[in-house]
């Protein structure tokens, strides 16, 4: 396998992990925050470097996968554990950015509660999950990434029952599912393993009816931790790597239908929430369900749309969450049953809240627009009638976002005298995310190309995986795949 020029992947992953120890032992919280920022920033720089490196290989040598160089951590049991492809190469810097921005925007009043060491550990775990394509690596990454969150809940003296029950179930499902899949002879379809893995990753994604832990987590953990546990969308990565290659078309379509229902269900719940965190949680669930719908379409357009939405959610929903977190840090928990009228006190946050919220629903000119368009097109191609649910869910989410904006920032005159002005670090961070939202929306071709390459690669991988089936099934599957992959022609130019 082709190697990157430097061990960028290991550097990206190890930097936050190494940084966690000194950050943990430091008693000066402000210094700890600075150190955590430094390590997280270094991880981002290495992540961006690997992206450039991989893009160079991809464009010059038509490379679709690249392993890390000088594998210290990267090799073992005859596998290259850390391998990137056109999509995961994009996910690594995006994830590093998500963690860095969360650390940067933590206010001084919150630094005693927010665990920087735990955050760096989580960052390393999430990055290692995204950097591997080995099923066991992903299973371990998904399972271990729950630990820092669980520890934080314990530290905050919150009940961990809901989180523990769901995450223990997820770990059990993933481990047993992967074990069952590994033990299934290559000539057989891993029915049981596939089912267990699917249930596990859907639980991690928060798909109905396995989503109960999400709202609980958002209510009990710090907003930053909950945000960082959800927005990188590691569950969706699990679907892509663990389920997608082995699932039968009907199974994928069933998951897609369940995800469609989840998207609508969560959109409806987001609309009626009176607590801002729960609102954000259900909005996020709705978006991640929409993303899964695209993934399960198993068409190039659908997969490309899903991956575009993925990056869009990473940027926009995270920005939206950060804006909400910044407001919460100044006012405490926000109720959406009343107006707060914060616009006059913090117009910058108001504008950013609205902009990132609109980007998350795929408003034209923002990063989510093209992804949502692609996704809706592909869904309607496969399910002409049911697919319109996506449009309805997106419409409801749009109403919810503006409703939240109006309730938080308008409707009354806030009587408080405490200054709510954004600190420079917060301002710069949120501005960066907003610019990414706008630039990504105005010039989406680069991102779309990356996602498309990854989609084709994934579909080919799925095709290869299916070739291990018995001959008769294989032929049927190939036909099904071809029909699913190339079912339509988007325009009539060639006709």
């Amino acid at each position: 396998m082709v190697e990157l020029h430097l061990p960028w992947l290991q550097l990206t992953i190890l930097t936050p992990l190494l940084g966690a120890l000194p950050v943990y032992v430091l008693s000066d919280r402000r210094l700890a925050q600075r150190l955590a920022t430094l390590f997280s920033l270094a991880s981002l720089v290495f992540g961006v470097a690997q992206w450039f490196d991989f893009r160079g290989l991809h464009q010059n040598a038509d490379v679709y996968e690249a392993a890390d160089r000088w594998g210290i951590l990267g090799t073992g049991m005859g596998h290259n554990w850390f391998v990137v492809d056109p999509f995961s190469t994009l996910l690594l810097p995006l994830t590093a950015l998500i963690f860095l921005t969360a650390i940067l925007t933590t206010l001084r009043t919150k630094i005693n509660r927010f665990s920087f060491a735990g955050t760096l550990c989580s960052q390393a775990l999430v990055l290692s999950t995204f950097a591997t394509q080995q099923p066991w690596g992903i299973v371990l990454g998904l399972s271990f990434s729950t630990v820092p969150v669980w520890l934080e809940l314990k530290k905050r003296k919150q009940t961990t029952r809901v989180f523990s029950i769901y995450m223990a179930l997820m770990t059990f499902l993933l481990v047993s599912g992967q074990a069952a899949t590994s033990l299934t002879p290559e000539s057989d379809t891993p029915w049981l393993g596939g089912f267990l893995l699917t249930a596990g990753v859907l639980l991690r994604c928060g798909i109905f009816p396995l989503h109960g832990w999400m709202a609980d987590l958002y209510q009990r953990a710090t907003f930053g931790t909950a945000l960082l546990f959800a927005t990188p969308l590691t569950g969706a990565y699990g679907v892509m790597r663990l389920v997608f290659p082995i699932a039968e078309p009907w199974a994928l379509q069933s998951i897609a239908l369940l995800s469609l229902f989840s998207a609508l269900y969560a959109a409806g719940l987001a609309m009626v929430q009176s607590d801002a965190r729960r609102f954000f949680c259900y909005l996020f669930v709705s978006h991640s369900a929409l993303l899964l719908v695209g993934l399960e379409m198993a068409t190039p357009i659908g997969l490309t749309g899903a991956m575009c939405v993925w990056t869009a959610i990473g940027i926009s929903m995270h920005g939206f969450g950060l804006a909400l977190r910044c407001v919460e840090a100044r006012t405490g928990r926000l109720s959406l049953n009343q107006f707060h009228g914060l616009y006059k006190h913090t117009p910058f946050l108001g504008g950013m809240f609205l902009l990132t919220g609109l980007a998350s629903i795929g408003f034209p000119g923002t990063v989510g627009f093209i992804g949502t368009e692609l996704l809706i097109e592909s869904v309607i191609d496969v399910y002409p009638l049911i697919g319109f649910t996506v449009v309805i869910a997106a419409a409801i989410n749009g109403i919810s976002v503006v409703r939240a904006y109006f309730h938080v920032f308008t409707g009354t005159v806030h009587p408080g005298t405490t200054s709510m002005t954004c600190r420079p670090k917060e301002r710069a961070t949120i501005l960066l995310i907003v610019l990414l939202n706008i630039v990504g929306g105005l010039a989406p071709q680069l991102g779309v190309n990356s996602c498309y390459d990854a989609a084709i690669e994934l579909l080919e991988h799925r095709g290869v995986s299916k070739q291990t089936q018995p001959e008769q099934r294989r032929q049927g599957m190939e036909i099904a795949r071809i029909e699913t992959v190339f079912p339509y022609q988007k325009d009539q130019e060639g006709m």
Partner: protein
Amino acid sequence: MTLDIVLHLLGITVVVSPGALLILLGLSRLLGIPLLESVQAHLTKASVLIGLAAAISILMIMLVTGSRHVPIEIGNWVSLDSEHFHFHFKFVFDRLSVPFVILSFVLCGTVGAFASVYLHRDPGYSRFFLFYAMFQVGMVVSAAADTIETLFLGWELVGLSSALLVAYFHDRPSPVQNGLRVWTIYRISDAAFLIAALSLHHLTGAGDFDKLMGVGHWPEGVAMVGPWPALLVGSLLLLAAAGKSGMLPFSGWLPRAMEGPTPSSAIFYGALSVHLGTYLLLRVSPLLDVSPTLRGLVIVWGLASALFGTLASRVQNDVKNALAFASLTQVGIITVEIGLGWDYVALVHMIGHACLRTLQLLRAPSVLKDFQNLENAVGGHLSGVQPGNRPAASPLQLGLYRFALERGYLDSLLYSGIVHPFLSLFRKLDRWERQWNGFLSRESVSTSTKSPVADSLEDVL
């Protein structure tokens, strides 16, 4: 330089000019660099004048050369060639779009000039002009769009700017609630539009109006779809148009939208935005030729809206509300004209009505004062009817009066028929969700849902 290149440059100028204004005003707010009122007013003026000059130049060239259809190909925003997926940016200048683009610039310019004085030293001055710029981009893009995706892009910008301007006076709950109401209706309309656009993609293989309307130029194009698909797409577009233009059953938002400042009311709900729905119907009018059922539906819908508008406008006790419903009446009539196939009549009607209504709405703040001055000068009521001398109303008149006063009970019907069941269902589901989590965490619902820590700023301090 060939004529084609000149037309291309002019076409791009038409779109870029308002876009540049939006970028400048947006960037200044994003970067926290406040612009002086005079700078904003001058930028707005320059943007409108450049765009208007370019649009008029295109019109002149078209008149001189006899050209009826000038497509401006911008290129693909996104393309996946191997999948034949293109998000196509294409504009067209024809007998429909050129008048509407010029109308948009003229009325935006008028209202911009008015607003720069009307909102002088208002704390929301720059916010107003930012939304105004967004609206102007949306209108121009919608008017000149040659693909349904491009039109949708402009359509969304118009919707967002409208809702935010209704909530302009955001220190009070009422404008904000009304803004949310307008946004909700717009989202429903947008969803219908998007579904129509996707259906169109499937039927014709592309979103280009050229392909939908066949070989002929507007309005003589012949739609390339059968009667049933035409009915499906046309009905969805009619629903989208009804939402955007405040036709039945969405008329409830029209008076609510008057909560915004007068300049925005004038340009949105009197002049341009309210006509965007009918503009859409005009753009796809060849669909009506294919489906007589759709044609009938458009006529009935327009007629019902016009009748309702005229009834409601007569009982309003607020001049802006009366004008809003009067606009609805005219929009209904324009829709009927479109349904009857009188495309040019509808276009002329639309332009005339937009200009008249802008004038009336801009005059609305001072007209009462003028009216009183006039009555003082005359020494009596101008209507000639003395209070208390009105003849007794018949039961039918009373019924109609009540119906009109309650605005056809439309808001309450929509609320009780759609909104309330929807919200009740999801509130119930939310309650069950909380109970389930309470059960798992062995906490009562009230405990499990309360904030785990008192983390308001006051507590921290």
